């Protein structure tokens, strides 16, 4: 039994006691955040938009997915299919999303400057170029920072994927950094005390650790160590949370798990839905393996199929539960892949034009914005920068995309850098 038993007074009492113990043990007070906003831990906002981002790592080919070029050499081996939107075709491995095209906003004219994975992913997540002198906050962290957490105990932001490479909270308060989960099927691991360890003993241990740490913390006071204090406190609070069931997709019936697809992305989307339902504001689900420099058609059909199943099911599921109106779903990647097929039957990096998809809260359904040229090489009209794309997402969430914040180094920053929202894909 991994998670708390059914709702009971015991659990409530335990949660409070644990919360108190955590504060006492670490001498915490509500930490002021960088921009003067009270700690997100105490500040929750029940409403507002949630964001689920599906991040395709490795650069998803645009021609084989949302921007096919039927009849041309560039199309390669992927066929194309009609969608619910008249005149608009998708790659053949997206039948379910094709059927939902009238609920989507598809952007086919994204363009970026960098063809390197690390820099491109950083740019997509933060709207800023990767620099040595500062770490920018990821979009999800901005959203939690500006809109607040929805839940007291649950994190505001969860990443199903690799935390190492994620910009995280950047210069914002560590409270808004995403909690990284490795495997959706395993959820949040090590969340319960081992059976032999009583609650009382656990708290004794925490208190003792804190006492022994006194000298070290005095000598090395500062942000670096404070971040660790914050993690400890958040971990303890999470252990006592009554909402941990949200992390456990084993509680879903098999049929549901099948519908999302048994892939990591599929189960990750299911987890994302559960988390958003339970009060997590932002979830990012990574899917790797898109960097298909060779033998593209060996791997691509399977991968695109996983995406189709997972994303379509997620949208339908959110809709059925009445959550799609308050949840924005984003499909993004760092750049596209070359229309020209290379010597190894693959496609190389192509920053000049690529595609992304939005759906849900704040988004106008059934819209295709921008186009690439006949060969899928360059934007033909309505080129959209990565910053513009993120500004659009910010606007859909009701975030102050035009506001200038001041970072700790005194420099001004905006949620989406210099981006401007694309009115054509927004309802508001």
């Amino acid at each position: 039994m991994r998670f708390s038993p059914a709702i009971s007074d015991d659990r409530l009492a335990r949660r409070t006691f644990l919360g108190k113990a955590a504060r006492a043990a670490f001498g915490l007070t509500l930490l002021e955040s960088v921009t003067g906003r009270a700690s997100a831990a105490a500040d929750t906002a029940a409403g507002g938009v949630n964001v689920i981002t599906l991040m395709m790592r490795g650069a998803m080919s645009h021609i084989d997915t949302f921007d096919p070029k039927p009849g041309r050499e560039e199309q390669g081996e992927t066929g194309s299919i009609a969608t619910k939107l008249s005149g608009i075709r998708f790659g053949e491995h997206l039948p379910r999303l094709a059927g939902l095209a009238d609920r989507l906003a598809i952007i086919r004219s994204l363009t970026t400057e960098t063809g390197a994975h690390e820099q491109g992913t950083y740019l997509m997540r933060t709207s800023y170029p990767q620099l040595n002198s500062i770490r920018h906050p990821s979009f999800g962290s901005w959203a939690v920072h500006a809109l607040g957490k929805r839940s007291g105990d649950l994190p505001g932001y969860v990443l199903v994927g690799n935390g190492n490479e994620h910009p995280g909270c950047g210069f914002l308060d560590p409270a808004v950094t995403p909690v990284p989960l490795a495997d959706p099927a395993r959820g949040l691991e090590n969340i319960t005390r081992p059976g032999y360890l009583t609650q009382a003993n656990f708290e004794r241990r925490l208190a003792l650790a804190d006492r022994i740490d006194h000298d070290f913390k005095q000598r090395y006071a500062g942000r670096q160590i404070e971040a660790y204090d914050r993690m400890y406190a958040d971990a303890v609070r999470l252990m006592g949370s009554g909402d941990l069931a949200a992390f456990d997709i084993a509680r879903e019936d098999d049929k549901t798990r099948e519908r999302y697809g048994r892939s990591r992305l599929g189960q990750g989307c299911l987890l994302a839905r559960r988390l958003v339902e339970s009060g997590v504001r932002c979830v990012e689900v990574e899917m790797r393996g898109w960097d298909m420099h060779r033998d593209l058609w060996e791997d691509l059909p399977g991968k695109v199929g996983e995406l189709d199943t997972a994303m379509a099911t997620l949208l339908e599921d959110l809709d059925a539960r009445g959550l799609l109106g308050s949840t924005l779903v984003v499909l993004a990647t760092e750049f596209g892949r070359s229309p020209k097929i290379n010597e190894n039957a693959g496609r190389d990096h192509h920053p000049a034009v690529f595609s992304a998809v939005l759906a849900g809260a704040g988004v106008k359904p059934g819209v295709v914005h921008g186009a690439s040229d006949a060969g899928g090489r360059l934007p033909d009209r309505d080129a959209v920068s990565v910053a513009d794309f993120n500004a659009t997402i910010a606007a859909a969430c009701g975030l102050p995309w035009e506001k200038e914040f001041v970072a700790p180094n005194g420099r001004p920053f905006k949620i989406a850098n210099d981006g401007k929202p694309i009115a054509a894909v927004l309802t508001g």
Partner: protein
Amino acid sequence: MIGLRRTRSSLAVAMAAVAFTGACLAANRAKPARAAPRSGLPAAVTTPPTGPVMKVAAVDAGRRSRVHAEAAEIDVHLAARWQEHAVEPSPPLDDAQFVRRIHLELAGRIPTYEETVAFLRDTASDKRDQLIERLLASSDYVSHFYNYWADVLRLSERPQKNLLFEPYLAWVKDSIRTNRHYDDWVHEMLTADGRLWENPAVGFQLRDDGMPLPYVDNTVRVLLGTQIGCAQCHDHPFDHWTQHQFYELAAFTAGTRTRLGGAVKSAKPGAEAKPVPPPAVRTLVKEARDSKGKKAGALVQFIQANATSVSFRDTALKLPHDYQYDDAKPSAPVERELLWGKVPAGVRNAGGREQLAGWMVSRTNRQFARTIANRFWKKVMGVGLVEPIDDFREENPASDPELLEHLTDLMLRLDFDLREYVRVLVSTSAYQRRAVIHDTTDEQPFRYPGPALRRMTAEQVWDSIVGLIALNPWSVQRPTAVEIANVAGVDLRTATIDDVEQQFDRFVKEYGPGAYQRRLNKVCGYRGQWLLKASEMPAPLPLGHFLRQFGQSDRETIEGGRTVPTIPQTLAMFNGPITHAMLEEGSVVYETVMEHDADETIDIVFLTVLSHEPSPEDRQAAIDELTAADPATGCGNLIWALLNTREFLFIQ
């Protein structure tokens, strides 16, 4: 003096009770608990190793006075800087602080109780030198520096389906073990020919197989600390490198082939020069596909792995077909041109690859020496003189150019002996001072009043914890190139499909998917964890593994390791099985406590986990704990508490 009354058996019973009722530990995972939870630690792990783990090249004790002189030069320089900038140097490390720091620095783990106590009690005036020299010749040194290079070189067992990379991983470790000098080592990596298990150094050229331009980018980044990668597609936006220059450099290695073959197709820009597979290989692949059913895919990959072989023949490189600048026509052939300097006279008539390698490691190419000097300065002091260490640029000058040139000269004088270089650095008095906080976004240059305070790397955390549990953390070692060759090598010119299949079966049994992991489960597995040195683990590890959670790289990005805190890390330390393994009978900390009198327990636990005696306040806190709870539980609480201090994780 506390009247702790406990016998070994009563404590053992109490602790064992603790361990056995930890059947709930299995419940931390989604899978149902195993039928009979493993009780206690595996025998291979609690039995001391019978002999030395590996034979490491000796350290020259006779060089000690030279080392001191070289260290003193650095100290003099830094002292002048401190005065210039009114910087107060940090207090010197006392012995307890030193013994912990130097073990982490050179052996990648905290010292054991015995090591700490022996050092503290040693009265020899040169005990620090002796310890440095001993650690530099230890197998843990090899393991620790292997972890470092694994992160830089992205060492992964199967970076692509056709690459059986274990021999390369083994070769990197072996190069450290034999203290191969850096320039020699690099030169071999840049020019090696053959298959992985015949000549493992080819792994460096194969890491980016199929992507010859990223190969150039990554090589320049790691070896010359220079980022030219943006120039692959267009003139560099921030720096002065043009796309033309990028191609001119790439022209040196354009003739590198990675498949066995005869006739060569003409090289198109950016593509590997793809030879036509020899008839034997084509036939075998066809036979595998046609007749082998479920096995077909894996068998074809095995054949491809055997057909993967590095060779070189000078080939022209052409500019891309969409080259957009005025200085040349698209698809025009490119002349070879270095980023700076000249091809050394000795290799002027050699092939492009030899020319590039000769230039790279030449004494006159100071940037090569400068990059590695800066890289290891950062490793030891926490902050490079140029940061980031792979982004040397005019707009990004060194914080202390004189010192950087001095270190570069030192590296050249030491003939690129990296181990001696490290030996000098850790012998400085600047290094042997308490760590200080350094904010990486601080615009003021760091003046090294002491090394920068850092969290342990994922591997240091892991190896330190495993050292508290396992008397023998080396119960399994990664395969060598010879072991792989025995089960992977096939002579494709003469083999029949049945020969291939036979060897394939042997390979899968030993090193197929999950085979190594199964061996680890059997020998050193404990509640789903392998009680083994990080360097001997499968690479990369899955995302949920403790090491990955603590920031170990997925080995896909250069230097992808991170030391930022996360909630899953904290939970793993609080509640994860690895923390509780040390409370099991047979663990190092358990046995150490049991071997001594009850009234020594507090000191022993502090010395074992934090490498120092408790302060009066700490001692009181510990006494309060041991007297309030029952002693066995109290002891477990004390060990857990020390492990979960922030102090444990940071290198002071």
